[in-house]
């Protein structure tokens, strides 16, 4: 599903260079649920942005669903992002002046789908997250947990091959966090690959695999025992994390 080899990303501000990712290599198989952990500033978000085609990288190769995305145009990257990737953000990132229905509609709008098709997808996505009755509410009228579920519905509506979740439970209480996590597990069980950045050890443990990033590189250190480790359950696909040389 996702293959990164020797990726490096350097931010330059005046004469200062910050190596956000150094010779970063990772393979995530179809249907995997990978938790990405690491201290602040370790490069987790940069990894997510590169993986989500929101940022380019300086060196290395990146194949998404078999397609080399290293030299794609913005148009092609956007299309790929729209059709294959779903995003879930810590702060939900719902558009405040659109109701939930229209928020879920946003990615579908960029896919030139017929109105009927869009409506069907939106309703079904909202049903999955249990927000059918709130589709015409504004984001401000929903609780944090509901907003995150709406954001998940938005990510699901496009039927993506994989979800990128950046601290998806960071802004909700623990009860809601568990509900969001249950939802992500359900989605994963339906076959969607999930990569989730988290600081929460409990959530990290619920993933199949944990990738720990330190200083822009994958560390051998496994701070959390994952579902796979604890239950000795095999991962659905390739799970080998390639650490940098």
């Amino acid at each position, binding site marked *: 599903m996702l293959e990164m080899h020797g990726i490096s990303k350097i931010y330059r501000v005046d004469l200062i260079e910050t190596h956000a990712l150094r010779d970063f290599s990772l393979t995530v198989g179809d249907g995997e649920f990978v938790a990405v952990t690491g201290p602040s500033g370790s490069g987790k978000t940069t990894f997510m942005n590169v993986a989500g085609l929101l940022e380019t990288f300086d060196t290395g190769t990146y194949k998404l669903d078999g397609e080399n995305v290293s030299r794609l145009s913005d148009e092609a990257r956007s299309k790929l992002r729209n059709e294959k990737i779903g995003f879930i953000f810590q702060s939900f*990132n719902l558009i405040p002046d659109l109701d939930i229905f229209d928020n879920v509609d946003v990615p579908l709008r960029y896919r030139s789908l017929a109105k009927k098709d869009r409506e069907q997808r939106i309703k079904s996505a909202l049903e999955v997250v249990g927000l059918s009755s709130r589709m015409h509410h504004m984001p401000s009228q929903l609780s944090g947990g509901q907003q995150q579920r709406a954001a998940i519905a938005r990510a699901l509506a496009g039927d993506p091959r994989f979800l990128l979740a950046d601290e998806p439970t960071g802004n909700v209480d623990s009860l809601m966090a568990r509900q969001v996590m249950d939802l992500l597990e359900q989605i994963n069980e339906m076959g969607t690959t999930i990569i989730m950045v988290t600081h929460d050890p409990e959530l990290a443990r619920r993933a199949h695999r944990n990738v720990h990033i330190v200083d822009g590189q994958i560390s051998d250190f496994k701070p959390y025992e994952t579902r796979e480790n604890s239950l000795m359950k095999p991962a659905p696909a390739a799970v080998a994390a390639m650490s940098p040389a």
Partner: protein
Amino acid sequence: MFSYYLQLAFRNLRRNPGLTALMIGAVALGIAVCVMTLTMYRAISGNPIWWKNDVLYAVTMDFWDPQQPNNEDKPELPPEQLTYRDAMAVYRSDIPKHKVIMHKAVGILSVDGQQVKPERTATRVTTKDFFAIFDVPFQYGGTWTDAADFGPEPVMVISRGMNEKLFGGVNSVGRRVRWNDHEFRVVGVRDNWMPLPAFYDVNNGSLEEPEDAYIPFGWNAALEIYSAGNTNGWKPEDIKTFQDFLNSEDVWIQMWVELPDAAAHDRFKAFLDNYATQQKQGGRHSRPINNRLTKPDQWLVDNGVVGNDDRVLVGLAFAFLAVCLLNTVGLLLAKFLNNAPITGVRRALGASRRQIFMQHLVEVGVISSIGALLGLALGGLLLTGLRALYTVDPTDAGGAQALAHVDVTSVVTALGLAFFATIAAGLYPAWRIGRIPPASYLKAQ
């Protein structure tokens, strides 16, 4: 997608009503000033008798000072008026289809037994073809006869506005009026007519209104009527009587002819040259023969009717529009950057740079359209204010009223101007917002 962009545009405009109002206001103000200035410029720079441009000619002859030209800036041009005796001599030609010699005068107009106060009235002392040659419309009656021109007969044409004042607007043909205490009979009432600029007599300002009274040319000698426009001379002459004035080298008569084809033009030009040559041979002047038949459009240029000041004014109006648009660029940038987090979300969800650019361009289009409509309305108000500055007879169509009238060309120009100018102004902000890396806003949202 366009309808979606349109929905988003209106939603975004509502999101920042203050900023939106500022942008629309800036565009509208710039457009309004441009519309007003362009309308004024069109009014004073257009050829108001374009349909006769190929057959109508101003007649000028150069019998000026042999030592220096009439106009140092344009030494090739003869004086724009003729002497009385040259005008009378050339008028005798039967080559033109229509011909007119004329000048402006002022007289006191009154009607016996009417309550209306005697009024100082701009009057054109002219031969009868004035109305035919310039396509002047009549409400009632018509012009006088050939015989009346030099009889002269006490006949008069008055304007529609004057007819309203003196006779309440009824058909006054046959009624009597007094002009400088001489009785005249009304033979015609001129309908609304005000060519802008006043091309037929460039001595009195391009926004000058047409006269309210017209009397036969022969009355200038009979009543010793001096010109109310410019009278220019170069030769020291001992002028003691009006007859001396008529025989002098002073120029004060305007002449126009209508020559229907090239043959008539060439014949009349030859006639003028013969006349000038005879005068030269007779020892009257020693300047090179320089007779001109000038079409109205060239006449306006030669006489500087559209002055540099007017062009500068148009330039300033466009500079003002540019300042307004620059402000709009700043406001658009601020507005778009303010919404950058949302744009970041849209980018993350699959919007390409092109789609973001188009979305914002549609928003700019909406702002420009509203700004243009508002600017048009504001421009109309400003022009109405201008009309108030030029106090004219309200029944006189055209003229200052034309200043207050935003015609189709002005509307199309304004809309085109607003649309393309604002779109141009919005190109950079729309492009800029599409270039912002979406990731930088996703965490911060």
